[in-house]
């Protein structure tokens, strides 16, 4: 015990001598808090180093990129820093789409417009994703969307193509699935229960463009009304989805879906396009991974998918920040970023860039994701809602009730609409406009 104490004291004394380090001098420092880990972290560091040794060197700007944990942690840190002392905020923070609602209400946020940032080359779908009544909230950087993953080896052996609509899917599901002699399903056609992310596409795409709540899914102000009930879009989706489920080859699980896919126990799944590298990694060559557009709810559901992912939010409007942001969305950086990480490149000039097109041809799985974004209606956006997770769970529970317990579709839709309406009303009461 005594030895332990002595040892700890000695160590501590030694450590106290480590004083704070020196500051970069003479150059403007642009501090970025980011959440890129693993291969994305390496790519991000390289992009930053590249800036510091070229443009930065020239203009006297140094990017200091600080990893601040997962995207969610970065948001927590930004909020904590803002609540303690605005000056402790970084110049730029990379946050994901779930931060939009917080950022719209944050008085310390600097809009890209005020920082005079050039956004004409950025793809409109990525812009719309971050557009609010106050204007564009942040500058898109790591964009992604929902993507349909399938076991290409299996599809090829059955000479099937990925389904274009949910009805197509229901038709081929019995072929994709497999049962053992006892009637137990050994391979499902699909695994997962759609929630907010998936419904953004399944409902948003209907009739070319549909909203879940008013104010353009909450982007243009605090929503006041649920739309999917009177529009009949949710009802329509549930009808098709139930038909798919009734084939007996949909596995209503909410966790471990990608492992089930990698193990070959489900023929398809829906996941973010940013998971592509991880999915291929986990499958480990057991079969070929194919990607396709997310199946449409019906023939008229042509809106495609919404763009999500991450963006840079600014807390400073200096010229240095402008230079840095414009560097990150430039062609070269976006190309390297997309190639190294699998995120969607958002610089429109790249879609004619032969080098980038060559990369897409070599990586068909990436190409599909990019094409899906290009063919989607940019106005299809994610929902910005308070109590987002309550709504998330309500979607999943009601879909399960409809498929497994035979709950009436209209009743389920009504229950969901009521729950969301109440969350909206409560929120409005607390945040009187």
């Amino acid at each position, binding site marked *: 015990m005594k030895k332990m104490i002595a040892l700890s004291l000695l160590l501590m004394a030694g450590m106290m001598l480590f004083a704070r380090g020196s500051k970069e001098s003479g150059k403007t420092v642009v501090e970025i808090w980011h959440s890129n880990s693993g291969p994305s972290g390496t790519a991000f560091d390289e992009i930053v180093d590249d800036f510091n040794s070229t443009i930065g060197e020239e203009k006297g700007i140094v990017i200091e990129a600080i990893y601040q944990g997962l995207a969610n942690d970065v948001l*927590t840190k930004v909020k904590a820093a803002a*609540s303690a002392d605005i000056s402790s905020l970084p110049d730029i923070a990379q946050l994901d789409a*779930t931060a939009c*609602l*917080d950022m719209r*209400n*944050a*008085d310390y946020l600097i809009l890209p417009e005020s920082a005079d940032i050039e956004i004409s080359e950025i793809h409109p779908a990525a812009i719309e994703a971050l557009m609010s009544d106050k204007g564009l909230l942040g500058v898109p950087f790591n964009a992604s969307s929902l993507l349909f993953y399938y076991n290409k080896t299996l599809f090829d052996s059955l000479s099937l193509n990925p389904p274009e609509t949910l009805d197509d899917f229901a038709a081929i599901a019995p072929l994709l699935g497999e049962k053992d002699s006892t009637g*137990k399903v050994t391979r499902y056609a699909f695994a997962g229960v759609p929630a907010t992310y998936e419904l953004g596409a399944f409902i948003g795409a209907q009739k070319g463009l549909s909203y879940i709540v008013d104010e353009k899914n909450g982007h243009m102000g605090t929503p006041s009304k649920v739309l999917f009930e009177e529009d009949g879009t949710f009802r329509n989706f549930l009808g098709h989805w139930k038909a798919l489920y009734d084939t007996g080859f949909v596995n*209503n*699980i*909410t*966790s*471990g879906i990608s*492992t*089930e896919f990698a*193990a070959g*126990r489900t023929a398809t799944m829906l996941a973010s396009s940013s998971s592509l590298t991880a999915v291929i990694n986990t499958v480990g060559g057991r079969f070929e991974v194919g990607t396709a557009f997310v199946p449409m709810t019906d023939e008229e559901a042509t809106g495609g998918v919404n763009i999500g992912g991450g963006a840079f939010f600014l807390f400073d409007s200096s010229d240095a920040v402008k230079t840095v942001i414009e560097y990150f969305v430039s062609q070269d950086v976006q190309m390297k970023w997309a190639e190294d990480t699998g995120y969607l490149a958002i610089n429109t000039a790249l879609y004619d860039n032969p080098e980038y097109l060559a990369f897409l041809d070599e990586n068909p799985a990436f190409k599909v994701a990019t094409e899906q974004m290009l063919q989607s209606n940019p106005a299809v956006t994610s929902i910005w809602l*308070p*109590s*987002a*997770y*309550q709504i998330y*769970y309500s979607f*999943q*529970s009601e879909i*399960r009730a409809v498929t497994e317990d035979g709950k009436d579709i209209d009743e389920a839709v009504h229950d969901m609409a009521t729950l969301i309406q109440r969350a909206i009303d*409560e929120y409005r*009461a*607390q*945040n*009187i406009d």
Partner: protein
Amino acid sequence: MPAIALALCFSVIPFLKTFVSSFLTISQSGKAIGFAGLDNYKTLFEDKAFISSIGNTLRFTLYFLPLNTVMTFLAAALTRRRRKCTWIMEAIFITPLAFSLSAFALVFKEIFRGEVSIINRILHTSLLWLDRPGSAMAVLVILGLFLDFAIDYILLTAAFRSIDRSVIEAAEIDGAGEVRKLFAIETPMIATMLSITVFMALKDAILISAPVMILTEGGPFRSTETIMYFYYLEAFKSGNRAYESAISSMMVITSAIIMGIIAVLRRKDA
């Protein structure tokens, strides 16, 4: 007293602020815009999800508390006297202390993952553990047991071994059997430590949130969403300040009441 100063700085004062704000209407950006009285509490209790989170927490406590007590008590009682091989068991029983919550959660996810999981292979079942409400709760309880086991084991063993030898010898002379000795003589003597471990387990059960966050995220279908995880979601994910302050105030008051009851009961015993 440094303890008091620290507690004041980092626990009591922040909490009092929260308590006051539970009676106010507070906007997303944190400004108080009016006095709400008990309205925040009223809406909270009208929320079905909150009510079900209370149910989930009670269920967790109901399974966890007895299991934890019996298991740690058994382990400590069986190894309370040193024999030739007790050191092996001691070594095994204290090892969980080295594992952090996140480490255990990750391993448990793997052990109970999907249909083709190692646990199904061992038990010859084909249960989707983490995807069925009942079994997900069971996994959560097991994880809870692992988290508390080692520390409770050490505390109880320490208590057993600090019992005065002469008392036990006296009982032996009286011809008391092993079992009788354990329950009639030794257990009452470690009553203080036993009640502390039970109390801590109760506290851990009522406040459980981090294991839920890492293991099940409240799923499937909100069946493992406990009060504190609900709180975490509302406070951090939804930014619902009204719920945030109302729940935390309520939790502390409830626990103060529980503590009060325990204190009164103990006084009666003595």
